[in-house]
């Protein structure tokens, strides 16, 4: 065994998050940790890397006791990690980020940095990942996908024996994800050991050797990938089988809820036109950087636009800021929940009601009792775990955080919901719950627009699909005429 966890336990404020976990990682394998949101996957990773201290248990590295007190300890023995949250420094360059903490120096420990050598190496590493970039470009100027690749280059630059990746593909487009999976396969051939976390079952099936399933902080079982099926993975994970990953419900197509006319973000960008209707889920597909988020933000008034008309339920609205948009009946669930969605150091009840405090007012003041009731109901409906409305959002797992953001917008009584990558980083079970929610919204007469880079998802849930490429809509496909090839063709402008 390269790495072994023995009887590892960890509790946060009295809540047992990991309970007596035993896992062995063999040299040269791709080992997947699988489990629902909040199962404890990221916590295991953070214990291995020294970001958290375990309460009890032991870590063995090459059959010897390993003491990790701080992240640099793990890095030193040869464990490189890509955390679930991006950990880059925005105002430093790609090169500096890649070599952060293990810079190349001209001579000894205290000498000046060897920038030319690092530049060359950074460029080589990024090329290995299919990116031809200037290593001096600042990371803040990169898109999320490229940033993720910088993280991977950073791990590779460590020359480590074990790379841990916590949901690396969740922010990548299909094409970038494909590139990453190929990189992983190549690394595996070169004898690299990888611990991999993902909620995308297909890719797990494709690249992994063994899978350890966790549920509620307990290890359920470790299985060999080639001896299991996706359905079995799901049932191990959620404790029951899941009949339908995409619970599509067909509704009657109703009247137009949102119409975007000749929307131009800059004076010389092409005008965008499209409509969304009651009774349908409108999917928007495209590669990373296709301009989908940009479009959504423009509609929602989050960024300034040059010109264009936005009509909600037949009424023209002038939307200059998000408040105008909310008043017009729009809701926008952004793709970065931490930066743009959550109040991390506020309890769930605060997060839940902040966008529409008028609804919990009594005699002009906020009625905290009512606020709590409402929050409790939603926590139950969306099965947020743990179901404690006083818990700070910071302490929820990624998936549960996403549920809280969605809950915030459900509370605003919007007519049109724009979801930007709504299932990024959430588990299969929770995904189904989100899809059900969307169905419910459609049933209630709301318009639902879903931006997603996961093609199966777009195909599985949409009634109609728009495809974007370079800021333009290149296809408007009905559910019946859409498939992966057609979409990819429109998305790449081919």
């Amino acid at each position: 065994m390269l790495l072994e966890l023995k009887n590892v336990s960890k509790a946060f404020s009295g809540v047992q998050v990991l309970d007596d976990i035993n896992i062995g990682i063999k040299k040269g394998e791709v080992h997947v940790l699988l489990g629902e949101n909040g199962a404890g996957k990221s916590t295991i990773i953070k214990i291995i890397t020294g970001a958290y201290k375990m309460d009890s248990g032991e870590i063995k590295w090459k059959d010897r006791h390993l003491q990790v007190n701080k992240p640099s300890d793990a890095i030193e023995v040869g464990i490189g990690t890509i955390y679930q949250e991006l950990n880059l420094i925005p105002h430093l360059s790609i090169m500096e980020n890649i070599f952060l903490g293990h810079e190349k120096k001209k001579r000894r420990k205290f000498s000046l940095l060897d920038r030319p050598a690092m530049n060359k190496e950074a460029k080589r590493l990024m090329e290995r990942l299919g990116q031809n970039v200037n290593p001096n470009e600042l990371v803040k100027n990169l898109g999320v996908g490229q940033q993720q690749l910088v993280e991977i280059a950073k791990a590779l630059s460590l020359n480590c024996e074990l790379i841990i990746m916590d949901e690396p593909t969740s922010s990548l487009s299909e094409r970038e994800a494909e590139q990453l999976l190929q990189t992983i396969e190549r690394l595996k051939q070169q004898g690299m050991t990888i611990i991999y976390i993902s909620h995308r079952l297909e890719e797990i099936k494709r690249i992994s050797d063994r899978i350890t399933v966790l549920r509620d902080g307990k290890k359920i079982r470790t299985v060999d990938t080639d001896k299991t099926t996706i359905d079995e993975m799901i049932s191990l994970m959620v404790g029951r089988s899941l009949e339908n990953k995409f619970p599509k419900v067909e509704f009657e197509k109703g009247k137009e809820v949102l119409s975007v006319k000749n929307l131009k973000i800059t004076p010389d960008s092409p005008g965008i036109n499209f409509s969304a209707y009651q009774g349908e889920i409108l999917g928007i597909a495209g590669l990373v950087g296709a301009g989908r988020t940009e479009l959504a933000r423009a509609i929602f008034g989050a960024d300034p636009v040059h010109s264009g008309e936005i009509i909600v339920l037949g009424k023209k609205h002038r939307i200059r800021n998000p408040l105008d948009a909310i008043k017009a009946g729009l809701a926008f669930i952004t793709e970065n929940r931490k930066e743009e969605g959550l109040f991390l150091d506020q309890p769930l009840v605060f997060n839940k009601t902040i966008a529409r405090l008028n609804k919990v007012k009594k005699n002009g003041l906020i009625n905290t009792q009512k606020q709590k009731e409402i929050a409790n109901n939603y926590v139950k409906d969306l099965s947020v775990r743990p179901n404690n409305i006083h818990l700070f959002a910071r302490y929820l797992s990624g998936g549960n955080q996403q549920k809280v953001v969605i809950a915030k917008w459900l509370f605003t009584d919007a007519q049109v919901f724009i979801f930007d990558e709504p299932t990024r980083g959430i588990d299969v079970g929770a995904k189904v719950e989100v899809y059900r929610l969307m169905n419910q919204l459609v049933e209630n007469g709301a318009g639902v627009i879903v931006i997603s880079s996961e093609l199966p998802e777009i195909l599985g849930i949409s009634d109609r699909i728009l495809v974007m490429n370079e800021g333009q809509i290149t296809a408007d496909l009905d559910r019946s005429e859409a498939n992966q090839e057609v979409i990819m063709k429109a998305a790449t402008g081919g």
Partner: protein
Amino acid sequence: MKQTEVVPQQEDIVMKKNRTKIDFKYIANKFGALFGLILLSIVLAIMSPSFLKVDNLMNIARQSSINALLSIGMLLPILTAGIDLSVGSILAISIVITGVVTVIWGMPPIIGIFVCLLIGAMAGLLNGLLLTKLKLPHPFISTLGTMNVYRGLALIITGASPIFGFSYLINFAGQANVGAIPISFILVIFVCVIFHIFLTRTATGRYIYAIGGNKEAARLSGIPVDRVLIIVYTLSGLMAALGGLVLIGRTNAASPIAGLTYELDAIAAVIIGGASFFGGIGTVWGTLIGAMIIAVLRNGLNLLGTSTDIQTVVIGIVIILAVYVDVLRRRSKN
């Protein structure tokens, strides 16, 4: 959570456990600074026989009130992850203009009071407008600028000399007592209640926390960030002016150099009171206790006849200790 209203259900158990704990945390959080205050008081009571005399307690109430008012004002910018360095200067410009209006121009005192608060609010409003309309990156620098500007104006307006001879009504807030209790302290308590309700029970109040927690998320949640920030700085200016009114009453004078370095005491009170410098965390009551701790400390050291140099050192150490105790308390909770 002793008065459980409903029969506990199965699923509620985890929640209830958490709830009790969180409520404990909540109380402990308030109790934290309060605990420090009580401890300090006990020590001082033992060391100085005069400390617990009603007379002296009223001294403390009176002496804490100006800083308390400024601190409650300061809490707002700090909750939004900002700061207001100009409060001392706003205090000065508000009171000297009040002096000009009532003493020099001879207008009625009630107009003087109104003008005082108005000038404070306007000065605060300008801070808010500079921050939001010029899109300055951080209020540290804009209020550092206005701190100079307002101070300079106060000096120019008065030709650098203090104004005296205020009428009873203007002096009232800072001078009068109800029985033994100073009006100024009653004013502080009143203001605390108002601000507590404002911060916890109104939308704008909650928005202040939201902006401090995550400005971008607040904007995307439809919160009118700029408007809230303008309100925040306006209120901070208003509280500085109110503090100035009390200062007039206490000293029967409006000096253009009034309030020098008051911003540091106000910031210290807010932080000692448990607010986070990064915004989003802090309460009115904590801030009040923070202001009381500073006042008690100064008073006690005066009673003990400690020299100013040693006072300076002790206050420095207490500031650090207060925050450290808070850190320990939070850590023990996790």
